[in-house]
């Protein structure tokens, strides 16, 4: 009797362990950047290509950095949520356009001159925002994805919340759903803005 009790107990424990394990999202890799200063960059601004922006310019503000691209399908899914969010105008939302042209996969990059890539990237990004609405205070262009690597981007869309001191306080991988916005992002923003 006692022995069967133990076997049953072990079985239940194993099922519980597997249930928890299978319920986790394997894409949700904790970012080591949370709690660290946002990596520096200087990137051209989409609306004014001759100007640049860096995280330093945002010092003293709580802000969001959203990584997107026009070829990214999940970005389309989260976009209405961002547009809605931006209407409230609580905190600046910066867009980091990630590998607009070379990330698409439908271009032969070995044959495309850098100048052409740049023109095409700006054109495509502008067109996409015109079509789907522009929730971004500013969008900067990371053509080769070099800044994306510094931010540990591995799947677009990704969103970072950065505090007044320029420290990353949260990273969300994957599309922002209304639930994520209301339950995780908004409370954190309220706390950081206190």
């Amino acid at each position, binding site marked *: 009797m006692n022995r069967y009790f133990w076997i049953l107990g072990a079985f239940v424990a194993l099922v519980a362990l597997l249930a928890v394990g299978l319920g986790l999202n394997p894409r949700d890799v904790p970012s080591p950047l949370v709690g660290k200063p946002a990596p520096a960059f200087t990137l051209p601004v989409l609306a004014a290509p001759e100007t640049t922006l860096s995280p330093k310019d945002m010092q003293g503000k709580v802000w969001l950095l959203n990584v997107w691209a026009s070829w990214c399908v999940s970005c389309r899914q989260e976009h209405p949520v961002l547009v809605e969010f931006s209407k409230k105008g609580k905190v600046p939302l910066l867009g980091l356009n990630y*590998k607009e042209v070379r990330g698409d996969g439908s271009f032969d990059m070995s044959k495309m001159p850098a100048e052409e890539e740049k023109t095409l990237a700006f054109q495509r990004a502008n067109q996409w925002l015109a079509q789907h609405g522009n929730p971004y205070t500013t969008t900067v262009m990371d053509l080769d994805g070099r800044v994306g690597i510094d931010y540990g981007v591995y799947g677009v869309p990704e969103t970072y919340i950065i505090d007044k001191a320029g420290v990353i306080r949260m990273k969300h991988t994957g599309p922002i759903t209304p639930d994520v916005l209301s339950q995780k992002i908004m409370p954190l923003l309220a706390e950081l803005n206190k």
Partner: protein
Amino acid sequence: MISRRLLLTFVFAAFFGSTAALPVAAEEAAPLAADPVAEKRLLELSNELRCLVCQNQTIADSNAELAVDLRREIRGMIQAGKTNPEIIDFMVVRYGDFVLYRPPVKGITLLLWGGPLALMLVGIFILLRYLRRRAQRIAADQPLSADEAQRAEALLKELDQK
């Protein structure tokens, strides 16, 4: 270790007599081909690092965009004279311990490293306990008394006669 993808490519090429897939790999390797030592280091390093897009492949195996970018990044760092620990560090700072196929021993990974050993010790403990009890049980089994032996013999005989 030969990458599975490469192997598949060769199998395919062998089967269909097509070499269409091969120039891609050749193009990939071109930038450092002139420097076999650096190329070997790149291979060693990228075999240690996980591609976060297709999580069960190393960035040496994977052809995901990010893996290509990271290989390019590693090439750049090798050319810039960075050491292997510096390059590994660069990756860990950005993507966390998860990029390492050989996770470091620390508090949170103790179970990972110690788990198999702990399980083996538990197994040995259970086995020894079982063996000891079994030996006790056998020792405790009294041989039949003279009386019992007689009865057993009688019963067996009875059975034979039937």
